[in-house]
């Protein structure tokens, strides 16, 4: 059983278009009925793993159409990319209707080749049992020279310190966050944000 799981995980996804890997017959226990929320229940009855994720993605696409871009759908992991102006709306939809009720972490990656910084939020669910293992990565990209994003603190309270750390480490300003401030670095830090790629640590 574990080797089958390893096979399913071994399929890397490098293409930015939606790619569904051919699902092996993974014996997954049938997911219990979703908690009654004010929502259309996703097709949770089928035991086939990627089909469940596909069902979640179809719901998002039905609501938002082309403003979301699906980067990949893997077993238990979905990555969705949106524009900075839509992110609060999409996050509210994910929280209220789809059942992803907390953000596990939030961070950023610097891509100097595209001249962009990507900020990624990993969303998980404590309340719904069929979504307990799923992580939906909500990402957005902003330009490196003037990095500003709307904050998600009113939707997910748990990103307060993560966004503050991203501001400090990568230089991304979050509009609406109460404190875009020093957090982990010393108070007299006078250099560029450390996690940018043009910051070289000494000797390397």
């Amino acid at each position, binding site marked *: 059983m574990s080797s089958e799981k390893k096979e399913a995980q071994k399929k890397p996804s490098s293409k930015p278009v939606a790619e569904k890997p051919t699902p092996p017959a993974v014996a997954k226990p049938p997911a219990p009925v979703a908690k009654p929320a004010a929502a259309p229940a996703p097709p949770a009855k089928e035991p086939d793993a990627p089909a469940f994720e596909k069902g979640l993605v179809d719901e998002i696409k039905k609501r938002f159409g082309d403003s979301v871009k699906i980067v990949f759908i893997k077993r238990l992991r979905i990555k969705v990319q949106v524009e900075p102006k839509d992110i609060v709306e999409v996050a509210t939809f994910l929280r209220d209707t789809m059942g992803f009720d907390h953000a596990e972490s939030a961070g950023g990656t610097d891509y100097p080749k595209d001249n962009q910084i990507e900020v990624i939020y990993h969303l998980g669910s404590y309340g719904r049992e069929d979504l307990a293992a799923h992580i939906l990565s909500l990402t957005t990209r902003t330009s490196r020279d003037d990095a500003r994003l709307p904050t998600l603190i009113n939707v997910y309270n748990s990103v307060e310190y993560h966004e503050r750390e991203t501001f400090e480490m990568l230089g991304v300003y979050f509009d609406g966050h109460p404190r875009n401030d020093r957090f982990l*670095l*010393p*108070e007299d830090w006078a*250099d560029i944000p*450390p996690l940018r790629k043009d*910051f070289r*640590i*000494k*000797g*390397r």
Partner: protein
Amino acid sequence: MKKELVSPTTFNVLVSKLSDILVRALDQPLGYAINWGRIWSLWPVHLETACCSVEFGAASGPRYDVERFGIIEAFGSLRQCDLIVVQGTVTRKMAPRLRMVYDQMPEPKYVIAMGACAITGGLYIDSYNVLPGVDGIVPVDVYVPGCPPRPETLIQGTMLLQEKIKRSKIK
């Protein structure tokens, strides 16, 4: 018990220690007594700097009992302590606080640099927030290497410190 004390192998050690005590106690009795009091009651400040503090905590445990050397972490103010054990990495944010704590301690005070990170920066030498060694801020008496040092090594370090204090002169 007397036979073990005075056996051929231990006899010269016994004689040297006795002579040492007698010479110094008769020569400078007050200095000897003060030094004796100092080495058997070194009180460390509760300042954990980084991950070596786990091994310092284990050293205070029942197996490597460091309390028999008089090292009790007196959870009072630092105005009554005389030892700082710099346990691990010192970052640029912590460095001014370490100096402030060191300045507030009364004389005579001693510093043990514990762990590779406190001696030269250790594993984190090329990090952007780590000081390469703590002897630029505070004067260090004993360096205890290891990553983290075993509690036995820490105890050996304190014994070295005790030897050093024994040799010092009282003004």
